[in-house]
């Protein structure tokens, strides 16, 4: 309209965009800053960068941009362009994000200025801020992070620009208004702390992080004779752990269970080593998954990575003990002889502690066999001496001619029968000796196997205790702390 055109020409006259808009050049210009958070876009743990979509809100007063609305058709406000290539520019503060990591250091979009008739100028530049955030991954994935945005004027010190929070009513989470009262320090009156500094009326909930609080701090710092004003906006966030419960916690608990169950597998199945090495591969795989999300720094190790590292060591130790168990299991009396000390420890003492049944208990019928085999040897030594004198005595005093004809044949046949029976007896005796020897070897071999079983059971109890301790010590307390 004609009135707006006339007003614009009136305001443009004698205006220079380089001029700091104060009437008295020795007085500072009050610049109020409000921060509105729209969205937490990304928290890059590996590169320690946080990305947010936020709106800045600058307020200052320009003494040259004042007019009487009655003289210009009642127009109360006008909007000037903020483009870099605009034909007419306004002065604006060079407030920057000090800890920015954007490619273009200033990542705000220069939006338009709203100028009121009393000279109040307001600009709401939106921007996608990417800034440094010190990530502590110790309690990943049950961690909380604190990031801050440090804003300040790049060239103007406190003598020229009085940078401060806009401490009007701030909208908190869920649209609740918050009255902000500064807590000033006793030594430096200009510096103060506020419990909430970011307006959240346009905030959209992030799926991965919960926003817990946004305190702020104003710092007036002296360098020589000049003092500089800095504004700190803190963002407290906590990671939401449901996704990690599905993707990381459940598999890690299953892996822990696999480690323990390897000791319940009998060595005859020939799969103990394969099971342990595959579990080892699974643990290495998950350790790689955890390390791919955490930054490669040595300041702090994630608890989950520590958990998987402990699992890695446990599985490696279980591989060693499995090899030992298999070595004990496959020992034979031909190659190894169990010493009395080892027999006392592994056959008597260790099973007693582990409440295991001794192998002698189900083998009570065996001593009877040995008892039977001893008695025939005793009888054999006495009978041949008695037989021979009887045969010689009974044949001669008896009948004359008839007996004389039959006696050699009978004696000859009987002697032959006795000789053959003696051979049979000796052969059967050898067979029994062989059986006795085999039984002894089986007993010794069973003792080796029983020793292996005892070691296996001991490892089962010890590793179960270790896994339980690690799980309770590393995972469970932080789960309970976050509920």
């Amino acid at each position: 309209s004609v009135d707006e055109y006339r007003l614009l020409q009136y305001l443009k006259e004698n205006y220079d965009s380089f001029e700091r808009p104060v009437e008295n050049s020795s007085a500072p210009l009050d610049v109020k800053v409000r921060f509105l958070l729209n969205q937490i876009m990304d928290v890059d743990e590996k590169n320690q960068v946080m990305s947010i979509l936020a709106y800045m809100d600058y307020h200052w007063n320009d003494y040259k941009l004042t007019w009487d609305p009655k003289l210009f058709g009642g127009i109360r406000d006008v909007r000037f362009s903020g483009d870099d290539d605009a034909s007419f520019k306004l002065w604006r503060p060079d407030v920057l994000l000090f800890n920015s990591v954007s490619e273009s250091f200033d990542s705000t979009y220069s939006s338009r200025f709203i100028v009121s008739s009393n000279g109040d100028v307001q600009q709401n530049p939106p921007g996608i801020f990417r800034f440094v955030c010190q990530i502590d991954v110790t309690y990943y994935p049950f961690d909380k992070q604190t990031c801050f945005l440090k804003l300040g004027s790049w060239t103007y010190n406190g003598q020229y620009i009085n940078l401060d929070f806009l401490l009007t009513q701030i909208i908190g989470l869920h649209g609740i208004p918050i009255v902000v009262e500064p807590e000033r320090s006793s030594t430096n009156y200009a510096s103060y702390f506020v419990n909430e500094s970011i307006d959240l009326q346009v905030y959209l909930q992030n799926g991965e992080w919960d926003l817990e609080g946004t305190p702020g701090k104003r710092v007036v710092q002296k360098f020589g004779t000049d003092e500089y004003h800095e504004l700190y906006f803190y963002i407290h966030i906590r990671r939401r752990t449901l996704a990690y419960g599905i993707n990381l916690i459940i598999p890690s608990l299953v892996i822990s269970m696999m480690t323990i169950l390897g000791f319940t597998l009998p060595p005859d199945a020939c799969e103990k080593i394969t099971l342990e090495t595959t579990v080892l591969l699974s643990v290495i795989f998950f350790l790689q998954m955890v390390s791919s999300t955490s930054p490669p720094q040595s300041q702090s190790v994630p608890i989950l990575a520590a958990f998987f590292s402990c699992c890695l060591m446990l599985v490696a130790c279980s591989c060693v003990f499995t090899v030992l168990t298999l070595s004990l299991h496959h020992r034979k009396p031909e190659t190894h002889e169990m010493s009395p000390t080892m027999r006392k420890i592994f056959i008597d003492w260790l099973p007693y502690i582990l409440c295991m049944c001794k192998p002698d208990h189900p083998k009570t019928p065996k001593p009877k066999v040995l008892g039977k085999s001893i008695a025939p040897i005793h009888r054999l030594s006495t009978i041949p001496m008695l037989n021979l004198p009887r045969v010689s005595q009974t044949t001669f005093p008896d009948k004359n001619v008839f007996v004389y004809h039959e006696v050699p044949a009978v004696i000859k046949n009987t002697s032959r029968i006795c000789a053959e029976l003696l051979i049979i007896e000796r052969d059967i005796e050898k067979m029994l000796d062989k059986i006795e020897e085999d039984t002894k070897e089986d007993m010794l071999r069973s003792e080796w196997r029983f020793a292996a079983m005892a070691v296996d059971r001991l490892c089962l109890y010890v590793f179960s205790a270790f896994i339980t301790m690690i799980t309770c010590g590393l995972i469970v307390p932080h789960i309970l702390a976050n509920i």
Partner: protein
Amino acid sequence: SDEEYRLLKDLREGYDPVERPVADHRKPVNVKLRLILQQLVDVDERNQVITLVVWNQYTWNDYKLRWSPEEYGNITTLQIPHGTLWKPDILLFNSANEHFDASFPVHMVVSSNGDVLFAPPGIVSFSCSLSMTWFPYDQQVCYLKFGSWTYGKKLDLQIDDSDLPDGHKMDLQYYIPNGEFDLLATPAFRKSTTFLDETYVELYFHMHLKRRTMYYGLNWIVPSILISLSNILGFTMPPECGEKITLQITNFLSVMVFLAMVSEVAPPTSESIPIIAAFFSLSIVILGLSICASLIIVNIFFRHPKTHRMGDWTRYVFLEWLPWFLLMSRPEHTFCRPRREEEKNDEEAGGDGTKLLENQQHQPRPRLLVNSQLVMDSTVPYLEEIIGYLKVFKAKLDDDEEEEEEILNWRFMAMVIDRLSLFLFTGLIFGTTALIFAFCPNLFTDSPIVDIE
């Protein structure tokens, strides 16, 4: 030409690019916005960002840019460079672009009746809350939120949807279909909100996307189902081959790799867990349980009577009742008749004993009294010794036979539990798979959602 120069000079006089182009400053500027969608470049599920190639076409009327074509050599349109005219400060509110405004500044086309056409192209990245619950059978609804950044009621923003088909408020005549998503509908809505004590008008252009599932079906679903079936086959392997646990632990590792693949694609958000990640996690739990069952089976298979003794209750349940229930058969053994077999064994044992005694009594009688007595006196001690030895030998063989039978009983018990686990885990895997895929609402429906508020 002289006419265009004169026209430009006349239009520039009295014009200010800051001035809002209305004759009465109390009236709003009517701006129409038309989105011309070129291409859906990328859907980044992890960072929840969608990238489009889109042309924002703005049209408004400027009362100071009017002329009569007859006075200026019949010139009806002009191309004015960007920055010299007033333009609306309409922005994409949920932009995820590095420079926030992704449009490229182009010339404006001015008509003689004052209509201004401004159509800057741009590669737009915007944030979208992607729900990955039903991934990869998911549909997504995203919106582009446009509005004036500083003008409130002084700029009347409207949707330009003339000559567009039903269900679409974006111009799709130049649209190139995306290989991963089908664009089902593009409804748009106009909404007024209050912000900083000023009424603002916002346009919401929604995009209803449906994921094409052939890629994920072939590369993720089919292999995982085959892994589950391979795990079931593990229960048909005898423990003697030494690879029963190896097969199942390798399947366990394979499902973990698939879980890692889902973790790389899906965003680490706790609002919605992808159903396929829950499927893989459940598969890991089932595989863990099946490994436990296999460990129990192998442990029972290699038991020995020297170290373990089977109780009566265990013998009845696992050697009689469960085989009958699972329709199993064992050579030379029929279930449901345990009593008769025991009676037969007793009769046979008794019969053998009596025959031996009778034979011994009859043999010495046919011989002559004197000679037989002599022979008996000489040979009986030897025979007694031999009989004693043979009794010991028979006892040894009986013990070995009994031990062998107990070993076979343990093996049969392992086989019974193996069969039971086969049926149990088959039902568990098929039930779990059917349950999860039955909950996918978008699996069989293909209708677009038009009514979105």
